[in-house]
């Protein structure tokens, strides 16, 4: 048993040799301010976050929640009846707040200025956003916390019931 435990310990230690990857390090959520959305005209702005597609109808501060593992990234793009623009990628891994100010669309590409701010930097004029829809979905996982806990409890109950069932079966 001691040898087995020692082997387990050594085996897990082996994994620590894996380097140059985004690690299990605490990171802060980052903000992305989308401004001047009106300039997109007939195009609608969309944010794709995991498997959720969100339409942004007015100037918005979007929070990219921090992942402790692989980077949490969102994709944004504009779309109209004819097609989509090129999409852009934003990740919390950079640990920077971002301001995206749109200036229009040309040749199917979004024209915008992007400003990166350090996390300690005071957020830019969020109060000026008209009808600002502050989306803080606490990431995909927040929505599913209850579901995850329910599944675990259900599985535990099923295991207990199975245990009782097998015990009775063995007796008979």
């Amino acid at each position, binding site marked *: 048993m001691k040898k087995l435990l020692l082997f*387990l310990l050594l085996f897990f230690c082996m994994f620590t040799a894996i380097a140059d990857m985004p690690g299990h390090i605490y990171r802060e959520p980052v903000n992305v301010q989308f401004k001047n959305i009106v300039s997109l005209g007939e195009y609608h702005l969309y944010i794709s976050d995991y*498997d959720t597609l969100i339409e942004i109808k007015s100037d918005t501060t979007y929070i990219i929640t921090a*992942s402790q593992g692989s980077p949490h990234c969102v994709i944004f793009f504009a779309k109209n009846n004819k097609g989509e623009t090129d999409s852009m990628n934003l990740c919390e891994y950079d640990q920077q707040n971002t301001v995206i100010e749109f200036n229009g669309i040309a040749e199917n590409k979004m024209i915008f200025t992007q400003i990166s701010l350090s996390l300690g930097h005071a957020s830019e004029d969020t109060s000026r956003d008209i009808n600002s829809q502050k989306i803080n979905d606490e*990431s995909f996982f927040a929505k599913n916390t209850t579901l995850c806990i329910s599944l675990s409890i259900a599985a535990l109950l099923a295991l207990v019931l199975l245990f009782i069932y*097998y015990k009775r079966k063995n007796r008979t």
Partner: protein
Amino acid sequence: MMAMFQYFFYTLLMELPVVTVFYSNEWKKILIIGFLLNLFTWPLLTLLYFYTDIHLLFLELGVLIIEAIGFRIFLVGSLKKALLVSFLANSLSLFVAVLLNGISIL
């Protein structure tokens, strides 16, 4: 939602065959027990991994021990065997997860 739970199915796909190899005479039982044990541990591990600073290796160690206890209770074999099987199954799924997701367990 499926994006999240697809990893659960990957875990099952990797772990169940490993466990079945070692408990081949109880393969029908292992499908149910293995599924339920993973259904118990996987959501908890996912939540704890994303919401706490507990190191992934400690979380995996907890899963390993819980699943080994489960195998010991439900299947015929020693605790040593259960620990070994649980270790092999969880190491495989962890190793693949590390490779696929580019996560480090430093």
